[in-house]
């Protein structure tokens, strides 16, 4: 191994970053050195979206809506105020609207222009949500889009697509599956997966904890 080691080229060994990693490191160093960003703030932002804010928040909202009809009514009337009762809100979800699935209509959320997504209740969006295939297809072929997720809606259930073109953020409230009567809110929340709150999936009773 030492036979391949040339002292003249030692500096190359420090440069083991890919071009994009190097660019991002350069940008971070520069902004910190110029006093524009606080490194502690960067870490706190990452920590928030890695550990504190995610689809478990939304699942709690759905489970409460399933078990507390008065909460469901408040959620219909003012989504932001209702999710704030559970402590959720803020950046990327200042104005939340809850879209309730019914036997007659299934809701599907998209942002054709970028990646708008209800951060406080679902966290950061998955890559497919932000990528061209989904953003292009959801509005023109919503049933074909659901088929890509292995979801087929019952005959006669209409489909309603919500394109998030403003600061309003949408969360789908799926229908409570049969066979969950008497379950606790916590157990109900465990079957509410992320995709069921985007509309590309359905709750799965077999996921129950």
């Amino acid at each position, binding site marked *: 191994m030492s036979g391949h080691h040339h002292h003249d080229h030692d500096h190359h060994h420090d440069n083991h970053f890919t071009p994009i990693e190097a*660019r*991002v*490191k*350069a*940008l*971070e*160093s*520069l902004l910190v*050195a110029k*006093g*524009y*960003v*606080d490194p*502690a*703030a*960067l*870490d*706190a*932002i*990452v920590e*928030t*979206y*890695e550990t504190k804010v995610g689809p478990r928040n939304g699942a709690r909202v759905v489970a409460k809506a399933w078990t507390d009809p008065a909460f469901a009514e408040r959620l219909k009337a003012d989504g932001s105020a209702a999710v704030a009762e559970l402590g959720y*809100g*803020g*950046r*990327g979800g*200042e*104005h939340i*609207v809850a879209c309730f699935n019914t036997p007659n209509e299934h809701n599907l959320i998209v942002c*054709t*222009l*970028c*990646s708008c997504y209800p951060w406080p209740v679902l*966290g*950061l969006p998955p*890559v*497919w949500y932000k*990528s*061209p*295939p*989904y*953003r*292009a297809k959801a509005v*023109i072929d919503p*049933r074909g*889009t659901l088929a*890509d*997720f292995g979801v087929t809606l019952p005959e006669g259930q*209409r*489909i*309603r*697509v*919500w*394109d998030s*073109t*403003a*600061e*309003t953020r949408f969360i789908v409230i799926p229908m409570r599956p049969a066979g969950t009567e008497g379950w606790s809110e916590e157990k109900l929340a465990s079957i509410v997966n992320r995709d069921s709150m985007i509309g*590309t999936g359905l709750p799965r009773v077999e996921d129950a904890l």
Partner: protein
Amino acid sequence: MNGGQDLGGQMGFGPVRPEPDEPIFHAEWEKRVLALSVAAGAMGQWTIDESRHARESIPPADYLSFSYYQIWLAGLSNLLVTHGFVTPDELALGEPVTAPRPPKRVLKGADVPAVLRRGFPFEREAPAPAKFAVGDAVRTIVMHPTHHTRLPRYARGKSGVIERVTGCHVFPDTGSQGLPETAQWLYTVVFTGPELWGRDADPTSSVSIEVWESYLEPA
């Protein structure tokens, strides 16, 4: 603008490919780009709509081939340069050459939870009553501005119905250009699939968009 970002109804991208057990980030640098974008945005030197415009101004061939956080990185770098906070040379070097331009604010680590929890509400005092009410038939205007707009191409010149009056919200088209903030009534407008896509549409589908008042005329 009719940039690479306006994707609704385009074809040829193939199926949506969900990733099983997708991680929140796919690389360390993605975390830093997210955090840098949020923290730099918190300096208060540009609006969220200006940052959207910076991203959609990336040439379409690049926009469609970049990963999401590559788009964010390009947009943020561009904003920092155009607002005079860094120079292209400094971006390449990773260290300051010119004196800093003092920003309006710097987000401190200790303030992050409160700032994220508070967010940046976009509703404003209404300067006038809403022109439209729930149930009104409306038509979106046809326009092709070179600046940022939130009226997607597929929904221009289309007839729909007001389903919801959301409130008076910050108007992105002007805010994205660095002009003084204005606000307009914002509505949810629903269109049938056939109105948007003609004979190729799924007749049992409908699509709504969020529409500012100046995008609308009575049908």
